[in-house]
């Protein structure tokens, strides 16, 4: 599964009309993609829809870039696999 593509798709869902080329791993959610705190809540829900994973508020709190989300999801998927 390409987690980055899933995240990209979820961001597009939350922020319709966003120039997709801006969604790169280093992009800052707030400064570069204009996602405010409510958008982040919607993004977490959209990702949960896609992945069947539950992203906790405190986990989302440490997220600043697109790459951070990808890393968080990958680590959660790994934990799921091993447990």
């Amino acid at each position, binding site marked *: 599964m390409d987690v980055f593509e899933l995240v990209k798709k979820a961001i597009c869902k939350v922020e*319709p*009309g966003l120039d997709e080329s801006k969604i790169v791993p280093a992009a800052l959610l707030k400064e570069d993609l204009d996602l405010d705190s409510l958008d982040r809540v919607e993004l977490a*829900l959209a990702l949960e829809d896609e992945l069947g994973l539950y992203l906790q508020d405190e986990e989302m709190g440490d997220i600043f870039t697109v790459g951070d989300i990808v890393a968080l999801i990958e680590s959660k998927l790994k934990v799921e696999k091993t447990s």
Partner: protein
Amino acid sequence: MAQVEKRRVVITGVGMVTPLGTDVDSNWSALCKGKSGIGPITRFDASSLRCQIAGEVKDFHARDFMDEKFVKRFDPFIQYAMAASVMALQDAEFRPGQYDPNRVGVVIGTACGTNSYFENAHRLVLQGKLNKVPPFFLLNDSGNMVSAVVAIRFGAKGPNHCPMEACAAGTSAIGIAFRLIQNGEADMVIAGGADAGVTPTCIASLDNLGALATRWNNEPEKASRPFDAKRDGFVTSEGSGVVVLEALDTALRRSAKIYGEVIGFARNCDAYHYTSPTPNGEGQAECIRLALRDAGIAPEDVDYINAHGTSTVLNDVAETKAIKKVFASHARKLAVSSNKSMTGHMWGGSGAVEVIFSLLTIRDGVIPPTINYETPDPECDLDYVPNKARRANVDIVVSNSFGFGGVNAVLVLKKLEGI
């Protein structure tokens, strides 16, 4: 304390979204031609209901007025209000910096607020998908969000209200805005009303209540027929009207175009019944009297009444009685017409839209008709401007709105002269 002189208040910008059109000009043109905005319900399957018609807003391009994210997040009633607000502020040629943001208020009323967003969210609850309920649900469900989002968009940091006063909400909102400026709490207020109630729950509830027109499913454009003997209920529609009110002195200072002056306002309650007006029209009559007194004018000064005129059996008789009580022999000389014969009943949106139409009546000297007036009702015996618009010089208009719960709101508008 010394008596502070009340400031004069004018309307300098107008915007609307209704089943007749998504801008003021197309609405006014349709209204003067006597066109109906009523058609079959397309939003959901209404085939099991007695009333299968409504006034749906068509060809509304929300994205012309707000961004994609806003459209996704907010109920149509908020989208209509936002679009009408954008239009009204453009029309007023308002630019940030013309007023101290702390002196700019927003008062947008609604009868029911969010409906379709609620119904969609509740479907998820019934399906057990609690974790899928949109986080924005409660923001939509808080009626006041409609006034808040407009304030956020335009940086209006002054007083912010959302009167939930049923079908009087839009009229009441403009009246509250009038008072805020008159009493010096604000210099400019964006005010109006909005509702989007063409949803299964709303229409079914009103159908079961027996409030809707049920005999006209095959001729929807004939269903809303205020004051006609064959009327059998109102037709639900949806939309929003928003106006920009300003203190006369500050409006003149920025050379604003002025549609007319708000000179009187009153609200009261029948305290009689949930849905029926006082049968002798006394509650409504008292509200009109109070508004005339507030305006400092005599009944004989009024040229035209933009009626509440819902097309229900009870309203139209009670309103006629109320007009006769207040205006006595002058009631026969007055023109009275119902815009709802064409727009249908937009609930909280109607009062505000009707204020705008009243201002255009003053501006253009054209009284829009009451369409579908075919068979006189002996109990409704005034001049309802039947079926065809009429040219007339109109200086003073009384605009009536009466809502469920017995809430009444009346505004008095006047042509601005001698400035």
